């Protein structure tokens, strides 16, 4: 999913410490936050917007397009059900450590209702100079600037480094899509790739993957057929097998999810795979001329 300045955003968990801190930053940047949720504080105002008990109430009273979650892991499934049943079609779930079976349930609910989910365990989405949803440093002018590169990342910190390198090399971003570091996520690398391929503002795509799972391999086939150039980086080449490298999804088991398998699939599809993030400017200059 891509966020735009006109999108109306609901913040589930707006009154918490992180919810408040990031709601204020999103608002300052221009994100259209229209309401927040906290059943215990329904009827009050927070960050200048009304607080409701349920997403259903918020939908009826003010209406919204996207819901972003600052919700503890064991409450995420129910919160997602609330949003989906209220008619929300775009959910951004930042929470880490949501039980995998809860993730599968909420993704099944979303699928049955035609809703898209980004995350869990994502740092969020950014459209430079318009809006952001999540906890990305969109407001840092040397990291995010409007431009033509669509960025897909499983990691917030590494995605930030790439955005910074892009800006230093004279590029800007059309959209940043943080897809999340969990083994099962709502929006896959392939989904994000297809979105950016269809996006008018995007000229080239920077795909930042990591070891574990097969999302990068699955996306490689489509990358071959795309008209826009794709450059990739895969984190975890030097990581020992059998260990979870911080992200629940970043683990090599046997010959599954290895760096070698991902690099091979991407290179076979004509995608350049960078050895270090500092090569991104050179690689894009070469492909875009």
């Amino acid at each position, binding site marked *: 999913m891509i966020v735009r300045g006109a999108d109306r955003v609901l913040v589930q968990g707006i009154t918490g410490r992180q919810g408040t801190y990031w709601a204020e930053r999103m608002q300052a940047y221009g994100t259209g936050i229209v309401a927040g949720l906290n059943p215990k504080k329904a009827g009050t105002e927070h960050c200048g917007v009304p607080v409701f008990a349920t997403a259903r109430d918020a939908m009826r009273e003010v209406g919204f397009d996207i819901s972003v979650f600052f919700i503890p892991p064991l409450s995420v499934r129910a919160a997602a059900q609330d949003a989906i049943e209220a008619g929300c079609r775009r959910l951004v779930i930042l929470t880490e450590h949501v039980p995998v079976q809860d993730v599968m349930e909420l993704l099944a609910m979303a699928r049955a209702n035609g809703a898209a989910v980004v995350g869990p365990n994502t740092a969020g989405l950014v459209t430079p100079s318009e809006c952001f949803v999540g906890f990305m440093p969109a407001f840092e002018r040397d990291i995010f600037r409007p431009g033509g590169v669509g960025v897909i990342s499983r*990691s917030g910190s590494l995605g930030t480094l790439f955005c910074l390198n892009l800006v230093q090399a004279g590029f800007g971003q059309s959209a940043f899509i943080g897809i999340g570091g969990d083994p099962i996520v709502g929006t896959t690398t392939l989904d994000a790739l297809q979105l950016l391929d269809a996006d008018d503002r995007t000229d080239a795509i920077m795909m930042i993957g990591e070891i574990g799972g097969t999302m990068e391999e699955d996306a490689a086939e489509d990358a071959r057929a795309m008209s826009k150039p794709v450059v990739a980086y895969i984190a975890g*080449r030097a990581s020992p097998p059998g260990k979870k490298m*911080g992200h629940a999804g970043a683990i090599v088991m046997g010959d599954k999810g290895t760096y070698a398998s991902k690099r091979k699939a991407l290179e076979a599809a004509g995608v350049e795979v960078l050895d270090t993030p500092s090569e991104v400017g050179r690689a894009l200059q070469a492909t875009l001329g």
Partner: protein
Amino acid sequence: MNFEEHAAKPLLQAAGIAIPRGRLARSAGEAAAAATALGVPVVVKAQAPTGKRGKAGGIRTVDDTRAVREAARAILGMEIAGHRVEAVLVEEQMQVAAEYYAAVLSDAASKGPLVMFSPEGGMDVEEIAASMPDRLGQAPVDILHGFTLDAAHEMLEGLGAEEGPLAETLVALYRAYRDNDAELLEVNPLARLADGRLVALDCKFVLDDSGIQRRQELAGRGSPETLTALEARARALGLRYIELDGDIGVLANGAGLTMTTMDVIAHHGGQPANFIEIGGAAYTKAKPALELVLDNPRVKCLLVNFCGAFARTDVMTGGLLDAWEALKPTVPVFFSVRGTGSTEAREVLRERLGVSPYETMDGAIVAAIAAARDAGASS
């Protein structure tokens, strides 16, 4: 989190799947007593949270009590895939007529549970999938509706395996998977006995690590990961630290950036000494993190790579400097500091440590590798 066989099997029993009578033994004497109570012949099985126990010689069938003692003595203390065997499971031997494979797992491709069954049990599922893929049934499950008897029958029909209560067993296995926040629940082999009953001869259970927060009691029966002393200390502090073989200590924020720091060190010819993640909610823990990284005796220099997003680099740098001033380490340190709060972070680094960060991450890494080489050459 992995579970040993003896800790996994009771989950099957609770769901109505039969398991052999058995007893856990931690010594040869206990094993002999178990065999006497159960009656020979028995199977003596090494308990370790890994497969390949049979191939490693960790499973023996014996038919008299003295042989049980010898088998237990041989198996206890074995190393299997890096795990020391501390206990054996002594089980009654079953009269097996056929062996099946059955499992339920969380499948990233279908984003839901996947039930797998094969009439060709007893070998690894990878082997079945490679050598006779048409004998391996796979049924993606709509988690909102569950795995029904009809779906089980349909799957079994396709494989020509409809004997007795197989469908009921698969449904029970799915229920056990759901009731226990499993990432994987596998029975291999699932045995058909001469009298037609189905019995789970082995069981592999992996508990979803994110499910532990609501399965504390269950997690208490699982096998903790094998950790080094430093890794155990990190775990107690809520930090994710992995000890590696190299000599460059790494301190970075976020899982992706930390992995990348290790990768770029390796790319330029160096070797990282650790993974440690202090991003996310841990970004205020720079001080204990630095202590951990420096307490690894292999560390010859330190590389600090911060790229602030959610984690503010000024907060991380401040915590790091507090620790640095308290510990007064003698190893050289190289910084790359960018992103949220980096202007303040650079200032405080200049003021308190008298150093400036490198302009690029690669620059800091190349310098750190050279310093580690120099330290290695002079020691």
